[in-house]
């Protein structure tokens, strides 16, 4: 059971201590401070679920503390404590976001009921956030489809590794469903009721990565207008998915290695060590062993991540799944666009079976989405799939896969006047991956 952290702010020693003793026996973790100013100092370094604040104090008043909390961390429940006679101030506090108020002295059951109600409300809020993200991700998770032998092996592997707490490294080409596999591990693990937090290491600029992962204190840097929890903190009790880990800087690799070893970290600008209990799943489309040889990936970090690893098969190695996947995407997009398209015609399906799909399942998904939009009949026809025009057929057995990929990317970029957003959508990869491939293959305008 996770302890509820409560901060008592009261300038009367005897009130503070008697309340702290009572709540400690109730099983909560209690801190006490004697002034509003001391409360603000505490709040910079420690996260609380509930604040019990006396309204009338020397110096900073309880209302000032309430204002600060609501501006900086509105999720914290603030209960005001007041003496009989200052009830109008308590009502004012309620208008300013206080959860409730108590008149001194109060009935022990009244206090207990408020605390229990706050705990229930906060749990419900966390659950709602989780359920909303589950609903949003559900469609994507359902896209992990496959009857082929390679996919059946992946499903078996996921079921084997899910119950364990070990770090998992998933490799494979872009668009093969590494993120879906990570989500499937989380969903089938004992941590499934906790959050699944994704960090796309290739999409977050290096100067923002530290704050994104570790969080920051208010005022830690110019734009830090309020204290923010990092992804490591948010993933407490769940799974942290580090996507495109091969794109992370050497400096961040050192910082992350340290966190993975002792699970303790500091927010940017913070002095309070924070602990978070999360499982790590990392993914990369880059060959990390090559990256180690190139000196851009740390060997110790690689071995820390590579406890259990598997490779997601590219779509060209499981072509028997193409009809199943294509029909699934067709159903989904025709429902979403409200277009009554029944099926993919035989010729269009043959074209799809011949194609190499360098962007893998994501490219197939985008191709079907586009076909549904442009289709003028009840069937998907070859002409609805412009990507399969003869000039797009680039399968030449003499070329290596890298050469094919480079040629295909170059062609798509040129056709779209180097519009990276448009090109990445057609290729079925995200923009950061496209940028890294342009750099890696030295593709020039």
């Amino acid at each position, binding site marked *: 059971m996770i302890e509820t952290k409560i901060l008592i702010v009261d300038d009367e020693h005897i*009130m503070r201590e*008697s*309340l702290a*003793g009572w709540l400690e026996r*109730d*099983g909560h973790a209690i801190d006490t401070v004697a002034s509003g100013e001391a409360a603000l100092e505490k709040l910079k370094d420690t996260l609380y679920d509930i604040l019990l604040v006396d309204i009338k104090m020397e110096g900073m008043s309880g209302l000032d503390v309430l204002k600060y909390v609501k501006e900086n961390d509105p999720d914290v429940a603030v209960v005001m404590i007041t003496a009989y006679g200052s009830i109008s101030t308590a009502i004012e506090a309620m208008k300013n976001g206080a959860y409730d108020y108590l008149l*001194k*002295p*109060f009935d022990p059951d009244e206090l207990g009921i408020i605390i229990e109600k706050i705990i229930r409300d906060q749990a419900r809020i966390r659950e709602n956030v989780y359920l909303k993200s589950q609903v949003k991700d559900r469609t994507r998770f359902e896209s992990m489809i496959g009857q082929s032998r390679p996919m059946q092996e992946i499903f078996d592997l996921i079921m084997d590794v899910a119950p364990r707490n070990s770090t998992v490294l998933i490799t494979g080409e872009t668009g093969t469903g590494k993120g879906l596999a990570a989500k499937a591990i989380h969903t089938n693990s004992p941590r499934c009721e906790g959050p699944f937090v994704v960090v796309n290491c290739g999409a977050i600029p290096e100067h923002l990565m530290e704050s994104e992962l570790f969080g920051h204190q208010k005022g830690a840097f110019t734009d830090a207008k309020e204290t923010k929890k990092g992804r490591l903190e948010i993933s407490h009790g769940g799974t942290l998915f580090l996507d495109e880990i091969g794109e992370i800087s050497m400096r961040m690799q050192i910082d992350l290695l340290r966190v993975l070893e002792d699970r303790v970290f500091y927010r940017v600008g913070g002095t309070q060590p924070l602990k978070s209990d999360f499982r790590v799943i990392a993914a990369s489309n880059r060959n990390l062993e090559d990256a180690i040889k190139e000196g851009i990936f740390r060997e110790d970090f690689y071995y820390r991540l590579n406890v259990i690893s598997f490779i997601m098969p590219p779509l060209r190695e499981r072509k028997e799944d193409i009809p199943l996947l294509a029909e699934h995407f067709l159903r989904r997009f025709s429902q979403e666009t409200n277009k009554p398209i029944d099926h993919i015609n035989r010729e269009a399906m043959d074209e799809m079976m011949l194609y190499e799909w360098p962007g893998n399942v994501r490219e197939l998904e985008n191709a079907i989405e586009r076909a549904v939009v442009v289709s003028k009949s009840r069937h998907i026809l070859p002409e609805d799939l412009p990507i399969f025009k003869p000039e797009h057929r680039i399968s030449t057995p003499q070329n290596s896969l890298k050469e094919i990929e480079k040629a295909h990317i170059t062609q798509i970029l040129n056709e779209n006047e180097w519009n990276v957003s448009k090109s990445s959508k057609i290729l079925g990869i995200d923009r950061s991956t496209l940028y890294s491939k342009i750099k890696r293959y030295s593709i020039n305008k």
Partner: protein
Amino acid sequence: MGGFIKGSQEIIISPVENTYSGIYKSIGREIQRILGFQARINSLLQNVDFAFDPNRNQYHSTAILEKLADTAPLQAIKVIAITNVDLFIPILTHVYGEAQLGGKACIVSTHRLQENLTPMNIESGFEERMLKEAIHELGHTFNLRHCRDKSCIMHYCRPKIRPALSIL
């Protein structure tokens, strides 16, 4: 609870300004049965006037606990006071009892334990509440906090109903 080293250590039941003398032996039997310690009745405090607050017309339980812990004999692993005075701590209107968490002393008041009992069950109901309250407060002195399991003696049931009624 089976893991405590008991030896010759005992728990003292200390009556304070009480009229319910028949209850002490029952509490002693519960202590022996549930906690496994011998219990002995020994009145450690003559009165609790020192803890009386005339403004509230109640007795400050924390002050009583401090004095009780100071006066407890060395061989007493814990001491529980049973009183009929109305107890309070400054922030709350009243308390049924109080304990030093992980400490030596606890106290239970009979003053409010008869609330909501009907004439039909007043005798048995009162004794049952007293026994559970006593073991509950002693549990705090063994550093046990409130428990969410409704079948546990350390469960705190709100409102009106006192700790739920089963054995650890």
